[in-house]
């Protein structure tokens, strides 16, 4: 049996201790659940019992519930009892109540009101302990409702002259939390200036809390808190020059106020270097002092001492890197980190590698970082912890430039052979990027990529092998070499499927360049490829089939052999529909088409247009933009700090091939039959398809040809996206369209027959959208019924930016159709064309109408003509929830009339549709049948077209 510790300080709750002890003694999960259920039943009966519970018992049971919840079980009662505890005047009861609420708050609105009430009382109590409990609760819950209730009260408490220090601390951090969750609700005002002055406060605890708050606020609106710079520097200077005794309790293992120092240094990172020279030199002095201290002998052997000291040092280095303006400091920082690279503490080696990564991107310290290359390579080989090795890979990547690229790539490749599986893919991406970026001759590049496939084929993603193909296609000086090299690599008895893909593609395009050699004659090439065929997956087999038909074009002498293969049952009757289709079509094509046509269809791939590297994009997605050292920006730096804030590289390198040929972050066309696609690319669709009668429906299988083709700008009208249209019937705001490049959001408001839509276009990529236009078109019939006027938008949307467009709308008469939003822009050289059905529907012009039961039925009868009523019975598509249904009906625009229908389950509504020409009164009734999961919807209006349309719109919603 477990020892039960003697009840320590404060009051023990014996019943609780016994219960905990019981749980600990349970031998199995089942026994534990049984014990818990027993306890829950007991507590439930106590809470429901006739006898009023005293505060102590209530506290004990609430505490037990909390314990059960923290064990991972669901708790669905006891909230009310916890709320009762809040208003107890016994401190411990109140405290447990608050703890329960903090951990288990749910959005039950009635409770929130009660909780807020209790908090309000405690905040007003002037008892600092109670005030702190209340502030902690607000910070712990941090919900919007709480922010709404207290966001204006807390700043007042924070800056009031008579607030006690400990309450100020809590108020500052409470405000910080609210500002993080609901920044819009925390009002800036006169108090902000006074908060900045808390940096001067005598109480270091207050200064610490205030610094955290100011940093958070300054990140969002730096201009409002500019005055904090000088105060922070003054404070920092006093700390770093103090002797350890000065700060007494705030000295931590002989380090003066390490937490506060870190926070102040962090605050200063919200700003550029101070312009005032005196201030600037004072800060430089501080930073120098911190760097100097790192060289002094430690005052204690305890790890806490060195951790605290180095925490300040690393934060100082972060600030130096952020400012990126003092070459001496940057180089000193780099040397300091260099020392840490060989420190016996793993933690310090880890952090030094990490921090050096950012230093590598400053032009002042890049060279200094490079001097540590051998140490870093050594770390890659000897570190026992994978997370440290990972940092070493990152640093090698960041310090790479043309002078050391070959060495780094070789080291990374050799590390890859033994690297942890978890980081292989990332290393592959990095090697691929570096090899491409710093390739002086492309034979090295091709060799490197093939090596990558050999060593870590499984981790070579599509992006990487697409890329090598794109580069080979774009550079004719490397094509012969590439063909020869893949041919040789394919000789290996077991080669990776990715190599077969690259080999199939490259030989299909450029096999002719090596066909002169009898050792690699067309037939030898074909036999080599085909010997791998049966080992490959379907997509690769599909690619090989495409390579074969290209062979027929390149080498008429092997035509018969290949036709034989295509004609074999294993191809023509292949169970896979994509393969079968290719075999049939290619065979047909090879039999019917003249050599001229074949030559046109299978002409060598045109060069790909230049685009941003998709491999780079993939790496960024993997690492998150902030984590990827910006190896491009370095060369563009002019001593300013811009590059470290820019999440995306500028990609302005002189290498022509840097830009990618196939960004994957763009919508792919639905795959089409391969031949139709290839001909389409060449712009000669009709003759061949007509001739061969090949316009079979597009297959759904993955088509590799499609993947490697550049997506040519499609100038035909795009399909209109209606996907989200019906989601907007009962709501006005949201995202109407999204693909990998662009997000379109809407905010709409309507009054009577007028409406306004704010359309937000968000560029999700890192690249500019150029020639951006967006217009609204309507079908002819609609043009007279609905007038839409679109304001113009800026033709450029920067990467990551959002622009807004306003549409003004007037409803002239009732309508059924919807206008279409046409968006066009150029992304990386390709024209993008998007059309979205705009959710402007008739019900948007509803004005809700209140009416009595009597009025309702009277009008209902008046609208009794058969064409005035439209009725629809339909199956429920969503769970039949009364509240949701109510919300939807209200969102539809009508008034929900209570107590009108004799059956309380039914919903009844009324409204008037406003158009310029007329007003149409409208009554509706929705009868749910939960048993059958069906609804019956009835609409009566004075105009049949209106009834019809409204019924269509609303019946889609349930």
């Amino acid at each position: 049996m477990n020892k039960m510790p003697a009840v320590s300080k404060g009051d023990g709750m014996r019943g609780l201790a016994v219960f905990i002890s019981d749980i600990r003694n349970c031998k199995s999960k089942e026994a534990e659940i049984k014990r818990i259920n027993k306890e829950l039943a007991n507590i439930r009966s106590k809470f429901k019992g006739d006898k009023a519970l005293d505060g102590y018992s209530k506290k004990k049971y609430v505490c037990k519930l909390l314990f059960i919840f923290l064990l991972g079980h669901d708790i669905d009662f006891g909230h009310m009892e916890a709320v009762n505890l809040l208003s107890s005047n016994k401190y411990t009861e109140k405290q447990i109540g608050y703890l329960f609420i903090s951990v288990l708050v749910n959005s039950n609105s009635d409770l929130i009101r009660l909780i807020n009430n209790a908090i309000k009382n405690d905040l007003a109590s002037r008892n600092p302990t109670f005030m702190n409990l209340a502030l902690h609760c607000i910070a712990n819950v941090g919900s919007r409702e709480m922010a709404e209730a207290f966001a204006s009260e807390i700043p007042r408490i924070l800056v009031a002259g008579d607030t006690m220090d400990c309450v100020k601390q809590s108020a500052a951090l409470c405000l910080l939390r609210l500002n993080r969750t609901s920044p819009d609700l925390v009002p800036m005002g006169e108090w902000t200036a006074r908060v900045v002055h808390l940096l001067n406060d005598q109480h270091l605890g207050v200064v610490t809390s205030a610094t955290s708050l100011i940093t958070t606020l300054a990140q969002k609106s730096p201009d409002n808190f500019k005055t904090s710079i000088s105060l922070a520097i003054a404070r920092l200077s006093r700390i770093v020059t103090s002797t350890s005794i000065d700060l007494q309790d705030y000295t931590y293992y002989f380090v003066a106020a390490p937490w506060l120092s870190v926070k102040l240094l962090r605050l200063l990172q919200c700003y550029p270097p101070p312009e005032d020279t005196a201030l600037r030199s004072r800060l430089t002095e501080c930073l120098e002092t911190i760097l100097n201290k790192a060289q002094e002998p430690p005052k204690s052997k305890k790890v806490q001492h060195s951790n605290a000291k180095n925490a300040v040092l690393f934060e100082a280095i972060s600030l130096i890197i952020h400012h990126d303006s003092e070459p001496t400091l940057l180089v000193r920082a780099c040397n300091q980190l260099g020392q840490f690279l060989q420190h016996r503490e793993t933690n310090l080696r880890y952090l030094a590698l990490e921090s050096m990564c950012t230093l590598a991107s400053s032009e002042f310290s890049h060279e200094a970082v490079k001097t540590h290359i051998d140490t870093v390579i050594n770390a890659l080989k000897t570190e026992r912890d994978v997370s440290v090795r990972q940092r070493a890979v990152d640093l090698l990547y960041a310090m790479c430039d043309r002078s050391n690229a070959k060495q780094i790539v070789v080291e990374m490749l050799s590390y890859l052979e033994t690297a942890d599986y978890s980081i292989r893919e990332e290393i592959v991406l990095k090697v691929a990027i570096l090899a491409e970026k710093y390739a002086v001759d492309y034979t090295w590049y091709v060799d490197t990529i093939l090596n990558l496939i050999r060593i870590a084929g499984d981790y070579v993603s599509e992006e990487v092998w697409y890329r090598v193909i794109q580069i080979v296609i774009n550079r004719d000086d490397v094509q012969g070499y590439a063909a020869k090299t893949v041919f040789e690599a394919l000789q290996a008895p077991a080669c990776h499927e990715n190599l077969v893909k690259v080999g199939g593609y490259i030989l299909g395009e450029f096999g002719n360049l090596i066909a002169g050699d009898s050792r690699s004659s067309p037939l030898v090439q074909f036999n080599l490829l085909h010997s791998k065929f049966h080992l490959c997956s379907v997509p690769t087999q599909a690619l090989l089939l495409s390579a074969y038909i290209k062979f027929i074009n390149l080498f008429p002498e092997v035509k018969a052999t290949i036709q034989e293969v295509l004609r074999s049952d294993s191809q023509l009757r292949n169970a896979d529909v994509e393969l079968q289709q290719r075999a049939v079509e290619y065979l047909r094509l090879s039999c019917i088409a003249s050599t001229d046509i074949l030559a046109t269809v299978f002409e060598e791939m045109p060069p790909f247009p230049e685009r941003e590297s998709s491999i780079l994009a993939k790496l960024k997605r993997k690492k998150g933009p902030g984590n990827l050292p910006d190896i491009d920006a370095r060369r563009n730096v002019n001593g300013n700090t811009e590059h470290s804030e820019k999440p995306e590289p500028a990609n302005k390198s002189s290498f022509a091939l840097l830009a990618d040929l196939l960004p994957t972050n763009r919508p792919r066309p639905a795959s089409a039959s391969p031949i139709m696609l290839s001909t389409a690319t060449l712009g000669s669709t009709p003759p061949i398809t007509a001739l061969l009668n090949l316009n079979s429906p597009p297959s759904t299988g993955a088509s590799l040809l499609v993947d490697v083709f550049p997506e040519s700008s499609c100038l035909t009208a795009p399909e209109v996206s209606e996907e989200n249209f019906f989601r907007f019937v009962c709501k006005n705001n949201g995202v109407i369209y999204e693909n990998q490049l662009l997000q379109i959001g809407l905010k709409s408001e309507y009054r009577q027959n007028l409406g306004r839509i704010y359309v937000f276009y968000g560029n999700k990529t890192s690249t500019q959208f150029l020639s951006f236009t967006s217009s609204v078109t309507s079908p002819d019939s609609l043009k007279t019924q609905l007038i839409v006027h679109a304001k113009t938008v800026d033709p450029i949307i920067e990467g990551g930016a959002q622009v807004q467009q306003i549409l003004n709308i007037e409803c002239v008469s009732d309508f059924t159709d919807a206008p279409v939003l046409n968006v066009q822009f150029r992304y990386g050289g390709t024209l993008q064309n998007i059309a979205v059905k705009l959710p402007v529907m008739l019900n948007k012009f509803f004005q809700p109408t209140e009416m009595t039961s009597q009025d309702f039925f009277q009008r209902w009868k008046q609208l009794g003509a058969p064409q005035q009523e439209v009725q629809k019975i339909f199956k429920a598509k969503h769970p039949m929830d009364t509240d949701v249904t109510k919300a939807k009906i209200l969102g539809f625009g009508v008034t929900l009339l209570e107590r009108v229908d004799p059956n309380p389950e039914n919903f009844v509504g009324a409204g008037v549709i406003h158009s310029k020409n007329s007003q149409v009164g409208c009554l509706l009734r929705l009868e749910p049948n939960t048993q059958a999961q069906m609804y019956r919807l009835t609409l009566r209006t004075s105009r049949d077209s209106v009834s019809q349309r409204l019924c269509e719109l609303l019946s889609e919603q349930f």
Partner: protein
Amino acid sequence: MRFMLLFSRQGKLRLQKWYTATAERDKKKMVRELMQTVLARKPKMCSFLEWRDLKIVYKRYASLYFCCAIEEQDNELITLEVIHRFVELLDKYFGSVCELDIIFNFEKAYFILDEFLMGGEIQDTSKKSVLKAIEQADLLQEVTWTPGKNCYV
């Protein structure tokens, strides 16, 4: 700081504190995943690791792992000392703290943490101030508000 977890070598969660709103389901998933990752690490490994979009800082004290998730720009070393200071506070309060103290007095552990960290930021770094606040609270109930011994059922 996004959250702090205390768990035992056996993978039992002893304390959890979340500083951003997180759904219960996600919490459970994250706790499970993170415990697995951390418990699998060997003793001499470094105390930091990248996990999802967060940085994890952890340290083991006897049978308990203290584990903090911090943001990209937060300072790892100072977070290690946040953990240490918290351990010191527990130690001082319970008098040579052990896992059992935290199990049986979990509510106290939460109170101490709340006095020390708020909204994920350190509230007071002075050990004295924090302990004073806690002790005052204890005093408050012993002297002023104690309902009497008969309450111990």
